[in-house]
């Protein structure tokens, strides 16, 4: 069950990321490129959990660094959007 859920969420993040990528092509708004990247990273994060069954996910450095990066990217996108207002 947990593997199924991890697989499904990996797919979900991937697909959402694809949509954001498309929006970036359509609007050239940097925010979408950053969101696409962040969502893909979250997908990768889940995928890694899926692959490493025995690992203590919370306290494994590489695993939560990816999550940190993903959310930092989103934060950066928000700050960037507010910095360069004409």
């Amino acid at each position, binding site marked *: 069950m947990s593997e199924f859920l991890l697989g499904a969420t990996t797919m979900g993040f991937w697909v959402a990321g694809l949509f954001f990528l498309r929006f970036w092509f359509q*609007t050239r*708004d940097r*925010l*979408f490129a950053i969101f696409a990247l962040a969502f893909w990273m979250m997908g990768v994060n889940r995928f890694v959990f899926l692959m490493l069954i025995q690992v203590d996910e919370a306290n494994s450095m590489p695993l939560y660094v990816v999550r940190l990066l993903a959310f930092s990217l989103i934060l950066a*996108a*928000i700050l960037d*959007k*507010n910095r360069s207002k004409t």
Partner: protein
Amino acid sequence: MTTQGLSEEIKKFIIEQINSLEQLEILLLLHSHPEREWTAQEVSQELRLSQTSVVDRLADLQSRGLLTAREDSALLYQYQPQKPELRATVDSLARLYPDYRVTVINLIFSKPLDKIQTFADAFKLRKDKDNG
């Protein structure tokens, strides 16, 4: 909703470049005095609009190639469309606007919202008043 009386060119211009009534009024004001350079304060006093939104509108019009900006003791704007076809369109619009005011206003407010851009705009912390 009928947009009779307005040329396709003017309609296209409004849909693509004008996103608020306030912005249109500012453009037409500067258009009616093309030799003059304006500060945001002067425009806001002339049209009795809040200066903060006037500042935004002027910058927006400038980025669309309708006005030029020059830094002197303050930021000065002047009506100077970058392309001759823009100039012709704004001239027609200015001529027709007094008679077709309601039609133009309807066109501005019934524009389909760009949903994707609205998503990105939601992340702006300061409120962007777009129906001024």
